[in-house]
């Protein structure tokens, strides 16, 4: 189980699907950001699994996973700053009330 690539990839797929559900279904902007973090982690798990099972990618997988983590940190910083800035104007964290460009 721990020695087959398929187990890791199916686990990553399940985590990605959970993150997709959260992104589509939650109303709170921060919940949606947390779901995006889950999806990024799922992709990272797939990358690390490929890196440790395919000999040609041995170190490259871990390096790419570290880069993805850094980019995810940048994304979280900017995303949360945007959420806080919107909250200051609209006084609500719920995304379906951000309708200024639809009216």
């Amino acid at each position, binding site marked *: *189980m*721990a*020695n087959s*690539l398929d*187990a*890791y*990839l*199916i*686990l990553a*797929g*399940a*985590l*990605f*699907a*959970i993150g*997709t559900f959260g992104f*589509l279904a*939650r*109303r*709170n902007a*921060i*919940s949606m950001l*947390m*779901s995006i*973090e*889950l999806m990024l*982690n799922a992709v990272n*798990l797939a990358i*690390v*699994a490929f*890196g*440790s*099972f*395919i*000999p040609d990618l041995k*170190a490259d997988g*871990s*390096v790419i*996973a*570290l*880069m993805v*983590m*850094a*980019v*995810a*940190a*940048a*994304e*979280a*910083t900017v995303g*949360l*700053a*945007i*959420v*806080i*800035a919107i*909250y*200051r104007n609209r006084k609500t*964290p719920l995304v*379906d009330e951000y309708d200024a460009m639809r009216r």
Partner: protein
Amino acid sequence: MRAWLYLLAAAVAGAVITTPAVLVYVLGGGTVDDALFASLATLMLVSALAVVSMRDIIRCGLAMIVCFLALAGIYVVAGAPLVAAAQVIVYIGAISVLILFAIMLTQSKAGPSSLVFQTQAVPAAVAAVVLAVLIGLGVTATDWHEVGERVRLATSELANVLFDRYVLPFEIVSVLLLAAVIGGVFIAKREEEPD
């Protein structure tokens, strides 16, 4: 009375997490790695479901920390200990704390905490299940040609590759992080009142 409920919940959670390990190790005849993988995978999926389904968003954030911790354990089982350490430092140490701060800054008490889901929650659940099934089918149907045995990556080897072949992306990522931090501070900064 309340304490008993918490104890019961803790006991149920412990049983849910240890049961797959026991099943794999004792009944399935797997190795210790298999048992660890089963237990950590269960913990990760359960806490991820808690992240997307619980009503109290602070508890969602705490469940997210548990999910990241289990994922770090899976990285160790997969043979990438440095990635696991970075996962603990970056995700649990930085991103989770950032998200918890943002939760505390944006949750007003008057907000309707009961309305957690959008109206499209049921189609979203169907779509997510279909996506998971498709990924599972695709993974099992694909023949990964060059798959070898699981190898444990030495940190010195990773460092050699990171600071030799990947040194330019490494520097670009550092510049990106700096830009993101400055941009985040600028966006979240309170604007001065015009006189």
